């Protein structure tokens, strides 16, 4: 047993030297996650304001101008120009100059004055789905607003008091930072280890390792430890930056978060190691790890797209993506104030994934030359 620790220690030391002497790997490990967090945090926003709107005002009355002001005043739509004919909308959309066109027909004010319902047209560019969806939602609300005003309704007989819990201001950053954390860590972790074993095979140094008394478990653990240490530093850096730059709160149990982070990093590092062990080729390893970690952690983890909305086969597939559980823990602990009992299931899933990955890397590791 003592020999095991000595061998693992020696391997871990060797691997640490590799990392420290290659500043770019260190950069990938420590600086890139921060840069990404800041880029994502500021760059990705679901507060879809400034939807570019063009108008066709055939009425040209105070009422019609009032309607336009209503639409553009809050900044949800941004007036980018006016057209003479709603049929020009397709051309405007094709050139990407506006995402919606509001058409007020002639006689709009007169129809209202007669006490009838006036129709206005809204054409929406469906090629950008997110913007289109927001435009439709808001169009509904503005329609109701205008109707209520036309009818001088003051107090609706029924109303709802909406309390938004956990993120009352509806800030995208609070929603995104946990997801970004998981995403960035997943990728960096898989990539770091995916190349490490494949490189030894390619350069022939694996052969030299086989001439020593180290066993396959020694190699696997020795390779994992330095990266795990780096991963823990990464998690701390990213979460600190999240709290500091974006004001993400920590409302729950930090120990739950710590354990989940270690298990998650172990699982992702193990996945990279498994890829590396199987492929023995750096190019194949990178392609395999980008495709197996980058896109699933982005798309199937609930980071940007809710898992509940996916069709059943994909919901099942997403239950194999560790980032999904880690994001649940992050959101639960940071935003909702969760503790052990709330996140026991996610912790268990993360532990299972880590155990399977490390075990499989060890088993698949063949101590012979191909």
């Amino acid at each position: 047993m003592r020999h095991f620790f000595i061998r693992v220690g020696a391997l871990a030391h060797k691997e640490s030297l590799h990392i420290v002497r290659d500043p770019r790997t260190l950069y990938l490990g420590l600086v890139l996650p921060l840069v990404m967090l800041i880029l994502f945090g500021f760059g990705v926003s679901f507060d879809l304001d400034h939807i570019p709107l063009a108008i066709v005002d055939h009425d040209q009355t105070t009422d019609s101008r009032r309607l336009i002001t209503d639409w553009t005043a809050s900044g949800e739509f941004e007036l980018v120009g006016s057209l003479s004919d709603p049929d020009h909308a397709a051309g405007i959309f094709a050139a990407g100059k506006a995402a919606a066109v509001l058409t007020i027909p002639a006689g709009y004010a007169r129809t209202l004055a007669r006490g009838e319902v006036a129709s206005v047209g809204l054409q929406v560019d469906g090629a950008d789905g997110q913007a289109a969806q927001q435009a439709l939602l808001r169009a509904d609300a503005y329609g109701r607003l205008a109707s209520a005003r036309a009818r001088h309704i003051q107090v609706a007989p029924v109303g709802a008091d909406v309390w938004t819990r956990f993120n009352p201001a509806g800030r995208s950053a609070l929603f995104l930072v946990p997801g970004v954390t998981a995403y960035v860590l997943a990728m960096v972790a898989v990539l770091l280890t995916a190349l490490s074993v494949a490189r030894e095979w390619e350069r022939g140094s694996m052969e030299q390792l086989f001439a020593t008394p180290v066993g396959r478990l020694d190699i696997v653990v020795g390779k994992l430890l330095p990266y795990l240490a780096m991963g823990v530093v990464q998690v701390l850096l990213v979460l600190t930056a999240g709290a500091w730059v974006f004001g993400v709160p920590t409302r729950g149990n930090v120990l739950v978060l710590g354990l989940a982070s270690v298990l998650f990093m172990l699982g992702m590092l193990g996945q990279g190691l498994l890829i590396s062990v199987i492929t023995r080729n750096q190019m194949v390893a990178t392609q395999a790890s980008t495709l197996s970690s980058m896109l699933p952690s982005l798309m199937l983890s609930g980071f940007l797209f809710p898992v509940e909305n996916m069709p059943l086969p994909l919901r099942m597939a997403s239950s194999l993506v560790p980032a999904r559980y880690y994001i649940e823990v992050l959101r639960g602990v940071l935003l909702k104030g969760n503790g052990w009992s709330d996140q026991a299931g996610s912790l268990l899933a993360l532990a299972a994934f880590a155990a399977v990955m490390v075990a499989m890397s060890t088993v698949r590791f063949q101590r012979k030359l191909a």
Partner: protein
Amino acid sequence: MNRHLVQFLAVFVKEVRQTVQDRRMVFLLTVAPLIQLVILGYAIDLDVDRVPTVVIDLDGTADARRAVAGMMADGTLEMVDQLGSVDEGEAALEAGWADVVLVVPEGFARSLLRRDPARLQVLVDGTDPTRSSVAAGTVNGYLAAQAMQAPGASGGPGVDVRARLMFNPTMSSPIYMVPGIAGMLLLIITTVITAMGLAREKEVGTLEQVRVTPLSPRILMAGKVAPFVLVGLLDVTACLAIGAWLFDVPLRGNLLLFYAFTAAYLLTTVGAGLLVSTVSSSQQQAFVVAFMFMLPAMLLSGTMTPIHAMPDWIVPFTWVNPLRFYLEGVRGVLLKGATLADLWPQLAILTGYGVLILWTASTRFRKRLA
């Protein structure tokens, strides 16, 4: 035959053979991206529906039940349980199995009858701002619609917004996501493989051997990137076919224009790969650097969130992002039937970037080789 052409073909054939030799690489370059496209096409669904809702009906009258049923009617909210107290509802939010808690207070029906303002209470999990605003909007929309029909308020003037969704009338997510996913896949595959291919030759030392051949650096480069441009064109064709077949992604514009955009875009992606390889001495470094280019490119392209929703200071970064212009071009051609007259600025910029990147890369490459 022209001497340069012979040399080019020799490098080309060598590169193709080297790639095809590893069957896993062939799989990763051709089949894997298509599997990703299919999975992601189904995964991404930004429609908010079936939001798990817990109802706490403290009134228990027929009116209350009718109001609750009315709010669930459009499928945005889905009742998952009925609970007895608000505390239980809050616990459900924290545990995460409900995103909305709808509380009908005692005396709701009586207030309605007396035309007093009856208040409903809605608790929303604000972790995901889009989801919570849509959920709250559904409740408010239903109540506002009821208010319009209430005695004394119905009839009279009103404004009816008739929205028409162009290019994508069913609001299908894959239709606008497939072009973006295709662009991301091309970026991941071609940039990384070009960057690592040259880095591998350096690492293994075969680039030294190439220097004793009569090959000029430019021909060497052209022969090395040409196979991957072809792979990219092949992949994009398959994406187009699968998109049309599985997701009904239309082709409304000119197919030639689509390929012109793809070719120009591939020039930028392989050019970026080459540029990366000139600054890296190992495959791991090449990958790290390629990665630092790819992530922001994917993020700031408008694929995930529209560019007009980004903060002003980040928008200039999108001007130097090839994926942004490719996405605009491809969405324009496929979905909007845009022509060269609409899209020439995007095509010109993309081609310009392609030439610029390739020229810079080849100059740097020649210097390093010499």
